[in-house]
């Protein structure tokens, strides 16, 4: 029966999964992690260095589990969770100097020949306004589509589309100015 329930949870609507997790069902909580860990990672990666992001994702979910009982409206879970993630990232940065491009170079899991460019693009993304940087990181790093970003952030599809469009325009300008993109395109 438990296995069948577990399978059912995977296809369930978000409020059903959140309610099950609130009742203490750990598989439901694991399902929330499966659905939202990339979004949390994208949100923290917009603020902290890559090497610290995975740890903060786990921290965010541990905090979320602890406080899940305080969440009144299950449908509000995405915005609530990402808010915890942003606060954890800000707490983490307290007393630390801002992330500089060179800091991350050795830790990025990309081929050495592309690490510099990846670090440059990541840095450019972090200079964008918060709404754009998070949305674009979710799109370009975590590989979520616009509709998935809307679902996982609680933003309206229209807002996500605007953020993606305006953010990408700014990013293209940034990269064009820095000569990062065109140099290696094609």
């Amino acid at each position, binding site marked *: 029966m*438990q296995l069948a329930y577990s399978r059912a949870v995977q296809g369930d609507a978000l409020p059903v999964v959140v309610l099950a997790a609130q009742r203490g069902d750990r598989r439901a909580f694991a399902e929330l992690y499966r659905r939202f860990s990339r979004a949390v990672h994208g949100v923290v990666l917009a603020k902290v260095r890559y090497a610290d992001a995975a740890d903060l994702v786990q921290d965010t979910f*541990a905090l979320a589990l*602890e406080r899940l009982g305080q969440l009144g409206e299950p449908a509000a879970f995405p915005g609530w969770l990402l808010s915890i993630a942003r606060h954890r990232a800000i707490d983490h940065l307290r007393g630390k100097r801002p992330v500089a491009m060179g800091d991350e170079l050795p830790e990025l899991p990309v081929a050495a020949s592309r690490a510099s460019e*990846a670090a440059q*693009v990541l840095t450019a993304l972090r200079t964008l306004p918060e709404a754009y940087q998070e949305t674009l990181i979710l799109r370009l790093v975590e590989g979520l589509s616009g509709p998935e970003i809307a679902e996982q952030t609680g933003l309206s599809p229209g807002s996500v*589309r605007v953020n*993606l469009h305006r953010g990408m325009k700014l990013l293209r300008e940034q990269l*064009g100015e820095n000569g990062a993109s065109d140099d290696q395109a094609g």
Partner: protein
Amino acid sequence: MTKPDDDYLWDKTGDDPEVARLEALLSPLAHQAPLDELRLKRRRSKLPFVIAGAIAAAIALVIMGKVVWPRDSVGTSCIGPGMVFSSAGAVSCNGDALATGVLPIHGKLETGSREAELTIADIGTATLSANTIVRLDQTQIGKRHQLYLQEGKMHAKVIAPPKIFAVATPSADVIDLGCEYTMEIDRSGAGTISVQTGRVELETANGAVVLAPAGTHARLLPGRRASLPLIDRASPGITAAVAELEDGKPDAIGHVLAAATKADAITIANLARIVTVAQRRTVLETLGSLVPAPGCASVSEALASPDLLEIWYDHVYLIHVGAFDATPVNCATPP
């Protein structure tokens, strides 16, 4: 700069080479790590000081003989790092009657008359039948999770890289290579394993390792010996011959070889793994008649090359699971 196409940026339809290039550049940074169950449990075990104080006071009252602590209400020995278990009713976790809890490392779970389910971190589940006793020997995210099945029945379903999950029994160690299987151990420590998907490694005390793939079953014998895996539709002839081998009867190897058909090639490949060097040539000659070595290599060549031997065993396995065509190969010179 390429002309942007918002559809691709929005829902990945259409075309925008620059966005696609940035995706390819940054996608290795995407989050992939599984949920860290141990960290969740560590956080949950940090009780607020007020609660801790209340517990301390309650313990003091117990010591003073004012309160009888209800045996089935707290489960204080079943918290902390371990594997989460759940059941429709109370099962025994280190002697505490609990429906859900955490089986700690070195803790023992006894299901009694109920079924229970263990969550193996984020890689799978183990369903325990009634009258089953397990002990958790190890659980480390990303490294190894190991249970000891003392007696009873366990159905494990694991999706993880090979060798992350293992089950020790009184008879053999079962190393998961990513699959689903059912094990049953009786009070004498003997039992069976039946593999539904993937394959498992059976390690025995003498160091011998046999591989049981999907669609096979094997006996786990007292004295830490695993029998040869037999296909689920094995003939009575080879089943009896393998039983003779388990009993150490003379000529048993010859009987196994004589009874084997092409469908039993996986049994013969495993036999080749566990026989002595002197016996291996005969076994490989039979294996060659059922499934020739890749490239029609000869038995002598295979015996001279451990790598070739492993490739041959893998070839037999792939044919067994239907990944390779089992059409007979016409080798110019018989192996």
